[in-house]
């Protein structure tokens, strides 16, 4: 894999990645704020291109890092460039029936699995940092943060997958 980056006056920054199989991918972060992604397959003359907005590019980025992409269950893995060994995942889950009517304290989610529920999305309103007395309702979507292993253990224990 060969990666090179150049800054082009008036245009923006170009990143060109040549894969081991000989395909080329070029990404341009343009001054307009949009991003153009070009792909050029090996031994091919014609390139293909897509123009993305910033939020679309972020979305594509999280797909490429291998996160699950589902409308209801979506996950993002965060890695900080300065702390390369610190990897945190965030994932959303629909609260299953067996948790409905229980409070956050009763379920002992953090004690059992290590993950933390940092937000609940409900039809009428969102709750950020729900208190221990928070009662789950049917249809709640929880945003859960933790290491990948902890999230898997949360899934086994509470979501039943």
């Amino acid at each position, binding site marked *: 894999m060969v990666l090179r980056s150049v800054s082009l*006056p*008036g*245009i923006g920054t170009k990143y060109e990645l040549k894969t081991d199989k000989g395909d080329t991918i070029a990404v*341009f972060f343009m*001054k307009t704020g949009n991003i*153009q992604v070009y792909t050029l397959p090996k031994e091919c003359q014609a*390139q293909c291109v897509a*123009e993305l907005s910033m939020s679309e590019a972020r979305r594509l980025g999280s797909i490429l890092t291998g996160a699950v992409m589902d409308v209801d269950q979506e996950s993002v893995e965060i890695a900080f460039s300065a702390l390369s060994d610190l990897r945190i995942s965030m994932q959303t889950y629909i609260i299953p029936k067996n948790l409905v009517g229980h409070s956050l304290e009763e379920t002992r989610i953090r004690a059992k699995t290590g993950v933390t529920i940092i937000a609940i999305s409900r039809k009428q309103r969102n709750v950020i940092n729900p208190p221990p007395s928070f009662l789950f309702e049917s249809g709640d979507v929880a945003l859960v943060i933790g290491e990948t292993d902890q999230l898997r253990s949360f899934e086994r224990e509470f979501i039943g997958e």
Partner: protein
Amino acid sequence: MEGIVLALLVCLVLACVTKYLGVPSIPFYIIAGIALGKSGLNLVSADSTSQFFTDLGLIFLLFFMGLELNPSRIIENRTQFLRSGLIDLNVNLFIGFIAAYIFGFTLTESLVVGVAFFVSSTAMTLTSLIENRKLMMHESETIVWMMVFEDLVLIIALAFLARGDSNPLFLFLKVILMFLFFAIIGKYGKGIIKGILKRDDDLPVLFTFSAVLAIAFFSQSIGVPDTLMVIAFGAALAASNATAFEVHAKPFKDVFLVIFFVFFGISVDLSGGISIIAAVVISVLALASKFISGLIIGLRIHGRIMSGIEIGVNTIGRGEFSIALATIFGSAAVSTMIAVVVITTSIIGAFLARYSDVIKAKCMEIS
């Protein structure tokens, strides 16, 4: 004042139409100016207010150009930059100069036309590369660096035009000193400048506008043309705070530059200018010269005729900088000639760039 409002409203309509059709707007602003001005309906004429706005347009255009001139980046890319740039310069300056001289212009006038032939429109070229999705082509990098080279030549041309009776070497020395002075301020005042530009109130915009204007005004007192001074100011800031300045200066540039183009059109006097035959000949030569320089650069640097066609068609459009030269030089006949070149090359160039794949396919068939 009504004149400016009328001109701006016409340009607003034109901007909507050209954006919708995906064609460059600069030639249409000039055509609108010609239609409104003394060669057309004679509805709008230049006055001291419009003069102030067009001056601002020119100053912000050149300040922006300076912001893109990052000396260390240029030095990093010097080989590619010099090879393509010198071919571009020699071919186009030569053809433009000879053509103008044959049409009876003086030596100085012919030189101005030659430089106007040489400087492509950076705005149109870069927009066309982005819109036509050609950034990945190897030729694109060459084209981008050609634009930077053209900017540098333009600066030299501006210095010679504006020097008056002072020694050009002495003038350059003054500009370089001012550049270093601004660069030192930019370097050591980086934190303070950044702090101002980062704010989300009215301060960043006010700061940018008054800094550029103050520098343009201050330049007169030390005998340096304001055009060179704002370029030096922009280039000195390029290494430290370029992006933030670009964001805050862009609205000024966008508006004042439109007024600059339309009033350039208004000032064009077709009656005393050049004949239709001369206009056609000069347009054909302007199209051909960039095509030839493109072919040579394509063969020399990329080793392919097809690259040459691509470089040629993408650099055909002349625009803002050619007009800037005409305005600063201020001769009616030269302005008319450059207006014709800008209008024809920018419209035809935009279409050639968009359909370059078709052109290349046709050339393949023939060969």
